């Protein structure tokens, strides 16, 4: 069912496109700098932080998750550009299954997003986080898992859109709420009940929780719960994207 040469082609194509897209690379560096400066240093100097951890350190895992989230959606939504510019037709008439196209897009989008998440790690020395090499290494697969989950969700959203209505709409209604209500910028545990509930159904919360545990040693959910939610969510979102994709033909 899955066609490996198609997967490889889609993956290589997106890697080449990323390597030629200076604006996207610049964006993935500028975004964390901005958020760390404004929230981390600006807001952080006004109050002491949470759990006895300085705010900028507390925020840092959230910023990694944010870069993963943005990059995932940007690359998933490139499938809409492919439709607009006609390249999708070339893939759709080829003797490869729709599943391979959807899975290939998820894999390449997740890789692009993972790489942009790794860029954020360069700021570790500036945010007062001291993390050992093993924990850092363990953070990489977690970041990859978050990238996969978010790219799959992005594909699901993209496959429901008939044309490119603007990234702003998606950013306002999906990306921003997911980011703010994931525990990335403030702990969910002390938030009002309604916000907590939203946080609990937000799959990104579990990714942020895992990263924060690895980077700072504090967490809110059991580790098994974090992993299970992320894995199940990724599977469901890829499944949903494949289904939506096949139905559209």
């Amino acid at each position: 069912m899955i066609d490996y040469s198609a997967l490889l082609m889609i993956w290589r194509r997106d890697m080449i496109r990323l390597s030629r897209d200076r604006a996207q690379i610049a964006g993935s560096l500028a975004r964390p700098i901005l958020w760390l400066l404004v929230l981390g240093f600006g807001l952080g100097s006004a109050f002491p932080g949470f759990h006895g951890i300085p705010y900028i350190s507390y925020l840092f895992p959230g910023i990694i998750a944010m870069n993963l989230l943005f990059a995932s959606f940007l690359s998933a939504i490139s499938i809409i550009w492919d439709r607009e510019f006609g390249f999708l037709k070339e893939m759709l008439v080829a003797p490869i299954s729709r599943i391979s196209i959807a899975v290939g897009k998820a894999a390449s989008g997740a890789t692009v997003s993972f790489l942009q998440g790794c860029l954020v790690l360069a700021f570790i020395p500036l945010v007062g986080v001291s993390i050992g090499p093993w924990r850092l290494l363990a953070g990489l697969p977690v970041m990859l898992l978050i990238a996969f989950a978010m790219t799959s969700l992005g594909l699901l959203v993209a496959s429901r859109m008939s044309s490119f209505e603007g990234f702003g709409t998606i950013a306002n209604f999906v990306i921003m709420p997911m980011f703010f209500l994931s525990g990335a910028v403030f702990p969910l545990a002390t938030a009002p009940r309604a916000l907590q509930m939203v946080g609990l159904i937000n799959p990104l919360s579990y990714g942020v929780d895992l990263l924060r545990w690895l980077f700072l040693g504090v967490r809110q959910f059991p580790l098994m719960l974090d992993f299970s939610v992320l894995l199940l969510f990724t599977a469901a979102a890829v499944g949903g994207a494949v289904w939506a994709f096949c139905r559209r033909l």
Partner: protein
Amino acid sequence: MNPPAIEVSHLVKRYNGLTAVDDLSFDVQPGELFGFLGPNGAGKTTTIHILCTLLAPSSGSASVAGFDCLNQPRQVRQSLGIIFQDPSLDERLTAWENLEFHGMIYHMPKLLRRERMEAVLDLVDLGERRHSIVRTYSGGMKRRLEVARGLMHQPRVLFLDEPTIGLDPQTRRRIWDLFKQLRAQLGMTLFLTTHSMEEASQCGRVAIIDRGELLALDSPQALVAAHRAENLEKVFLTLTGHGLRDEEVSGPERMRDQVRRLKRWR
């Protein structure tokens, strides 16, 4: 006996109220060079997209190489190649990368792939620009690359949706020689749309459609004889009328129409 290369039976396609293809039926035999003619908006591209499994018909059936387009899409896709009317290249990649990726999704082994890539690049004279980003190509160069890519995997049935649009006479001639060669040497079936009556005259048989309906189907010579016309263009205009369709009309045609309208006023 071999099944027809293309079989279309009572095909209908509606787009919310507009009937783009209206009860169309015809067969194309293996190895035929078949011309599919009609004014702008007649339903040619829609029919081709149904045959290529990109669109589902509203009713009726279609098959390619003996496989049903709706129920056996995978086998259909394995049998066909297409040169789209609209751009379908990845313009951020080089010509070489576009061809390489095409070969990969058509499962061509690496050696064969490389060999064919060289061959088709030579054919459309893009060998020297193979490593340039496609966005930096001229319109005609992009078109040439689309043609080259469509030919690369040598399908049994090749759909060509206005393949020579925007090409210079030299390239047009070379590509037409190639079409004939592919038919003679490989027995490839070619299904082609064009607005050039000169090109259409070189087809074995042509179908003329308008508003999604089939108006005539025969060899160009037989059509010209049956209508006692001077050439295929006269037949085409007799059958489809002199009125304009959409915006995409050539200069001379628009002139003729305006002259006729003036005459009517007199």
